[in-house]
């Protein structure tokens, strides 16, 4: 690892952890399904930044870019399908509060 990469590594790691905590907090405290999706997005962004950082540090930028592109495609599909499910649930229950979605409960 070069000296420049080493100076970059720890500050980036700190902010990646902060971003991960913010996303996790959002997932933990919310009852709104759209906000839960936004929290999931923030977690994926933290993972994306971590992948790009590791690619930069290890000089495998090309490989990491191809992996990140695959990750972005997955992210879009997951969010699009989840948004469709959220809309369907809203049409059915007239609410996005997860506490009111008890129809499938044991």
């Amino acid at each position, binding site marked *: 690892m070069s000296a420049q990469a080493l100076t970059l590594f720890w500050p980036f790691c700190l902010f990646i952890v902060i971003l991960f905590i913010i996303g996790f907090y959002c997932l933990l405290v919310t009852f709104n399904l759209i906000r839960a999706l936004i929290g999931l997005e923030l977690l994926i962004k933290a993972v*994306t930044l971590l992948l790009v950082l590791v690619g930069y540090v290890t000089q495998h930028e090309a*490989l990491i870019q191809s992996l990140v592109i695959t990750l972005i495609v997955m992210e879009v599909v997951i969010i699009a399908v989840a948004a469709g499910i959220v809309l369907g649930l809203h049409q059915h229950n007239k609410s996005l509060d997860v506490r009111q979605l008890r129809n499938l409960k044991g």
Partner: protein
Amino acid sequence: MALNIDIVVLFLMALSALWTVMTRSLLRSAIGLALTSAMLTILMFRLHAPLAAVFELSVCSGLISVVFIATISLTQPMSQEKVLQHMRDRLERFWYLPILLILTGIVLSFLNFKFNLILPVPEIEKDPRIVLWNQRPLDLLGQIIMLLTGAFGIVILFREAKKK
């Protein structure tokens, strides 16, 4: 100097992510998410990943924001009273989380982590297009299958909704 710019952009990204989570309006949350994506794009450019950065800007900052805004506009927002009640409940239920976070940070700062980031790869390809098309064609196949799955999922979901 370069590190200073990176730190500023990282700080702005964390700030926009915090705003995304803490703001009451869902629409503002979606805009905050787009801002976070834009900041991430700048960082990806600076970390020598321009192709992935362009994808991030066009898809995550553009397309996903449009999907979120469309979903928010098609659903009813919570009333102001309910939002305030929910915030009060949240503060009462999760008051211990910041303390837990600070304690975890203190414990982690005492542990001495050592990373060995040198991977045993003999040849390093510098062009992402060659990696994507020649070395990892199965990834492309996976992407196509995922896109088709997503398209079929959306079609089935909306057909079901239409029937009801």
